[in-house]
């Protein structure tokens, strides 16, 4: 099979998947967890427990506060201590439920046996309801509630679901590990989503820098023998895991500016989401665990880990379990080094979408002094959306809103390719993000006024 990749732009940063060989370990329970109510895109959940309440693993502690919102469950058993604002990794105040851990008692409905249930349910609405009740969100980075994405608006129909196993960000290896260790469960999860979307085609896309994962997934798929499902091997290039890029790479279709992937008949879900769907539907287990990578550019192999964590664990606790924050780390990133967030507050707790703790040295991450644009066009060559970052940057500085819209600032996916390749160290993404925000606000404003 010939290897595909997306057609426009892209970069090849150093792979740096140092922790690819580290088997997933289960973290012990901390004495106390802080469960954030804003673990998903959309409205934060509303806490439905009060201090003093006893909770078990899997008890609902937060209810969705809107259409785009999600349930939050207790990751531990114990007593609710406080329900109060607490700082998240960016230092912003977010409602948290603090639970003191007592034992490890799970809700009776959760199937904790290791058996793999291969039988795929057929009641679409019941499955969607299960996914919603389990609080499953997209684990590829955006944490968009899965049940909303899997239930496209009437009139639009999916003809292909893409399971994103590309993990194109450098350093991250957690998706790689689950594909090696739990391939059948991922494939069953994919098949469930395939059923929900009306039996469309399903493609599991994996980049060619993960041969073990490809082999393991192929073997599992052959064992299960599902029809209408295939594994596509993609040529490594960042940002392959971007929704629009993946659709371009696998289906050779492009989502129109401002439209959703469903408009070209595609739904994209991450492999970790597929696993969460499997657990939610077949095992009744809500989304309270996920896999994360502990890695860094100068971290010795002994410090590299892939962990199965429970949400609400303080990041500092997780870092301690992995041997503490290394001396050299000048920046801690949660998520990949290209699109992840820098951790401003290590006391914050892990959330559903936490993908890593990445320790970067000063040499690797400290920004250099901004120079003058030499018009080399490397930013435009690397932009996977075909934009001209140098131009949008200039228009943003000049405050030319109409010009920014014409240059399609609103299509920026903030992948960081332009800034990564800029020889003059111009902070393009910082400014492009602002430009995008301004144009989006303007478009929204216009739409509201038009009505």
């Amino acid at each position: 099979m010939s290897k595909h990749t997306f057609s426009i732009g892209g970069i090849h940063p150093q792979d740096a998947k140092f922790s690819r060989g580290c088997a997933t370990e289960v973290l012990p329970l901390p004495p106390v967890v802080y469960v954030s109510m804003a673990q998903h895109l959309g409205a934060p959940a509303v806490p439905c427990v009060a201090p003093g309440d006893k909770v078990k693993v899997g008890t609902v502690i937060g209810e969705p506060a809107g259409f785009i919102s999600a349930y939050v469950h207790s990751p531990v058993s114990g007593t609710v201590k406080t329900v109060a604002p607490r700082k998240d990794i960016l230092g912003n105040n977010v409602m948290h439920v603090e639970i003191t851990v007592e034992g490890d008692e799970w809700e009776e409905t959760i199937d904790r046996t290791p058996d793999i249930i291969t039988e795929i349910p057929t009641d679409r609405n019941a499955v969607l309801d299960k996914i919603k009740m389990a609080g499953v969100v997209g684990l590829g980075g955006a944490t968009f509630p899965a049940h909303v994405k899997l239930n496209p608006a009437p009139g639009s129909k999916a003809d292909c679901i893409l399971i994103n196993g590309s993990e194109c960000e450098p350093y991250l290896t957690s998706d790689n590990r689950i594909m090696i260790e739990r391939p059948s469960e991922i494939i069953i999860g994919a098949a469930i989503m395939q059923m929900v979307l009306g039996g469309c085609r399903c493609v599991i896309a994996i980049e060619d820098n993960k041969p073990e994962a490809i082999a393991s997934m192929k073997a599992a798929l052959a064992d299960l023998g599902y029809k209408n499902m295939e594994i596509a091997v993609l040529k490594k290039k960042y940002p392959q895991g971007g929704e629009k890029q993946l659709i371009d790479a696998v289906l050779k279709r492009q989502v129109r500016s401002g439209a959703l992937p469903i408009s070209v008949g595609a739904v994209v879900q991450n492999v970790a989401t597929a696993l969460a769907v499997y657990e939610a539907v077949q095992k009744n287990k809500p989304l309270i665990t996920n896999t994360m990578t502990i890695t860094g550019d100068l971290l010795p192999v002994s410090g590299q880990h892939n962990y199965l964590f429970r949400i609400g664990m303080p990041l500092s606790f997780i870092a301690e379990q992995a041997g503490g924050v290394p001396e050299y780390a000048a920046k801690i990133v949660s998520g990949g080094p290209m699109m992840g967030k820098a951790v401003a507050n290590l006391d914050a707790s892990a959330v559903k979408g936490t993908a890593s703790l990445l320790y970067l040295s000063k040499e690797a991450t400290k920004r250099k002094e901004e120079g003058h644009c030499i018009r080399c066009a490397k930013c435009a060559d690397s932009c996977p959306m075909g934009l001209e970052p140098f131009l949008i940057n200039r228009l943003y500085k000049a405050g030319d809103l109409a010009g920014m819209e014409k240059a399609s600032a609103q299509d920026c996916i903030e992948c960081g390719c332009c800034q990564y390749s800029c020889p003059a160290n111009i902070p393009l993404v910082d400014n492009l993000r602002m430009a995008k925000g301004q144009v989006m606000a303007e478009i929204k404003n216009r739409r509201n006024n038009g009505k």
Partner: protein
Amino acid sequence: MTGIFLWTVGILAGLGFILALVLFLIAKKFKVEEDPRIDLVEKALPGANCGGCGFAGCHAFADAAVKAPNLDNNFCPVGGNDVMKKVAEILGYEVKQQTPKVAVLRCNGSCENRPRINEYDGVKSCRVKAALYAGDTLCPYGCLGCGDCVAACAFGALSLNPETGLPEVDESKCTACGACTKACPKGLIELRNKGPRSMRVYVCCSNKDKGMFTRKACKAGCIGCGKCAKVCPHGAITVENNLAYIDYTKCKLCKKCVAECPIGAIHAVNFPVLKPKTEEKKEASNE
């Protein structure tokens, strides 16, 4: 030789005449009739085009002022009452006197008061920084210190003090146009009444966290204890969301709250020196 000379002069002169004629005709045809008063009003305005009045610039303001039935909604904060009086004379309108205002920064999170807990390494822009995270201190409400307000000020009235990391307002230059209040992503700058002889009392903090957290974040933060509200004889102080606020329309500058505040978050500026204690406060706020 003479022939060439004459030809050259003739052609150039002819060309000049024809082009002048074209320009004249175009100017005549496309002439825009404008109310002459707009020009007069615009000349009376300060001409800074700061946008503080809510219009795009001085010309837009003059245009709106001429077309409006009265001057109630049009006030040039930069020119103040003097300029508005002139504008009113030109247009034959009444003008409402407005109290002069001045920009006031409601944050005292200097480097000394508010320890930095991380190092920001992005674009030096408050907007970008605020979009990224809560800031490089434990106070998610305080000044980010990147100087967007300084850049927004058209009058050079703001400057960043490298020692405190906070912007400072030069009262003699501030025209209360309000550009900085819009530029600050945290909404820390407020336009307050300038007060008699520029004397003002205000809460120099915008932190809405509980007192416990505020204390941890900043030595000078309002903890919302409410002592000031209790002591105020004029009912000018309200405490909401753990933050005291002094209503400048009610404040009579008695300074009882200043003495009562356990943190020193209430600042009294430009008061004549009476007691050594007040002087300390004054110096602190002027630094």
